């Protein structure tokens, strides 16, 4: 407790850089808010109330006995059950187009990734293939759909599947090439030392090491693509999105609620299944014998 000691106590490191960074960040956010002149901020307080009210109506739709007839529909025979079935069928279409899109992405990204990884390809190939991956990733699915796929395939789920598929090549390619580069180089070297060709090296030493992680990524991408397929519905490229767009914009909350619940349930089910499969692929198989 002496006032002055021989060794000077070090000063704490300055805090002002953090303060400045924090203030700058808040400044940027405020400027961003300011620049949005037609953001009707004054409507913000109304959101909770109105959303709750809509949610209540949605819940009504969901909880009504499926045999009942909704009011105000032109077809008097229509039941809530019809809405459920229709939503299920369209959601099935969304899942199907996401699956096909993922397959297309996997099919093309897999071989390309070997031409983009530093461990398996020369620089002259790597640079253009990586550019291609990045370029594809930078174009949103909706633009791919609008400019290329809709003219080709028309207002069909095929258009959505191909838009998602091409877009997925970029992100899957990037992840796959990272998996290839993360492979343990020592077994590859051993195979090289045994006189293997480029392809033999890849088939016997690289692919066995990176395949499980890559398949897990495919499944993960499938989950992402199911969500992405919703947006494609807005431009009528297939799936549940188109009807959801129409119904919610028409403020058919009961109908919309049923659709949202179907989306939630199917998505969660697919996610759980996919997560279980991914876990199994990455960890579970460790203990079982495999064929050569």
């Amino acid at each position, binding site marked *: 407790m002496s006032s002055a000691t021989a060794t000077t106590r070090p000063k704490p490191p300055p805090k002002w850089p953090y303060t400045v960074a924090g203030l700058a960040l808040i400044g940027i956010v405020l400027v961003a808010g300011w620049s949005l002149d037609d953001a009707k901020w004054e*409507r913000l307080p109304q959101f909770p109330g109105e959303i709750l009210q809509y949610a209540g109506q949605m819940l009504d739709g969901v909880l009504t006995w499926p045999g009942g007839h909704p009011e105000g529909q032109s077809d008097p025979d229509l039941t809530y059950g019809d809405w459920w079935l229709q939503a299920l069928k369209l959601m099935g279409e969304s899942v199907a187009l996401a699956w096909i899109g993922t397959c297309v992405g996997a099919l093309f990204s897999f071989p390309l990734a070997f031409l983009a990884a530093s461990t398996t390809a020369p620089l002259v190939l790597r640079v253009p293939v990586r550019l291609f991956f990045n370029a594809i990733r930078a174009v949103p699915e*909706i633009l791919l759909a609008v400019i290329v796929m809709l003219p080709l395939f*028309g207002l069909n789920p095929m258009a959505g599947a191909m838009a998602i598929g091409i877009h997925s090549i970029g992100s899957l390619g990037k992840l796959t090439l990272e998996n290839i580069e993360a492979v343990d180089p020592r077994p590859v070297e051993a195979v090289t030392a045994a006189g293997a060709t480029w392809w033999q090296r890849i088939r016997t030493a690289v692919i066995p090491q990176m395949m499980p992680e890559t398949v897990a990524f495919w499944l993960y991408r499938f989950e992402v693509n199911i969500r992405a397929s919703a947006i494609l519905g807005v431009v009528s490229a297939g799936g549940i*999105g188109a009807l959801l767009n129409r119904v919610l914009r028409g403020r058919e909350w009961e109908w919309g609620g049923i659709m949202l619940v179907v989306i939630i349930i199917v998505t969660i089910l697919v996610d759980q299944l996919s997560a279980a499969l991914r876990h199994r692929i990455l960890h579970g198989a460790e203990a079982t014998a495999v064929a050569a």
Partner: protein
Amino acid sequence: MSLATLERADGAPKQVRPAKPPPSPLLIGGVLGAVAATVVAGWAIDFSLAPVIEQWPMLTMILEEVVHPEWAEITDPSSRLWIAMKETAAIAVIATFVGSLIALGVALLGSKVSAPPAVFRVTKSVMSMIRSLPDMAYALVFVAVVTGPLPGILALTIFNIGIVAKLTAESIDAVDPGPLEALDAAGATRWQRARVAIVPAVLPNYASYVLYVFELNIRASVVLGAVGAGGVGQLIMLYFNRADYARLAAVVIVIFVVVIAIDLLSQFLRRRLV
């Protein structure tokens, strides 16, 4: 495996060679399941590549327009495109900031390290429900209240809370338990534990997730406008409905450049963080 077996004089009993086991039923099941799923999905969406050939002339016509983009849209900073782009950027910035801030708190409630079991279980299932709806669905509901950037911001904020909270909660799960035990031993409160040991430990990861969702938000806010939630998406729908491919091409170029620039920036920042 003894060395005795190495000397393999003729006539000496040979070690039996095991038969090759059949491939694991799980592998077979997995492959067959994937094939079946693909066949069913292909049938469900009427998979056919024939239109590529039939409609090729149509596509080339469009691409001809696309390769002559409306440069004025790009070069004129007061064009509709740039105004919409600024709106998109502002939506992404605000949604990332607000969403990430809330997500940090939610993440603390969503990990068994920092929250009591009942709380983290409830938080986790609510979060997974929130994540199961695409950002699009939120935007569609919110535009019913009001159109413009506000519903876009709200939709993305919720989307961000879902992702950042999940990833951060997983990081919290993986926090080194040593310092936490030390704090518990010193009689720290839940809040003190979080502030002293958990938040500092996950901060670099958290920051990297925030940058990641910012990237996603730029892409997503481009798209959300398609349902009237502000930003470039609204323009995309306008030009699409008018079949104005020259202007659409201009939109593609700008989005392309902005997205790649932000990717590079965030990659650079993330590399410095971790």
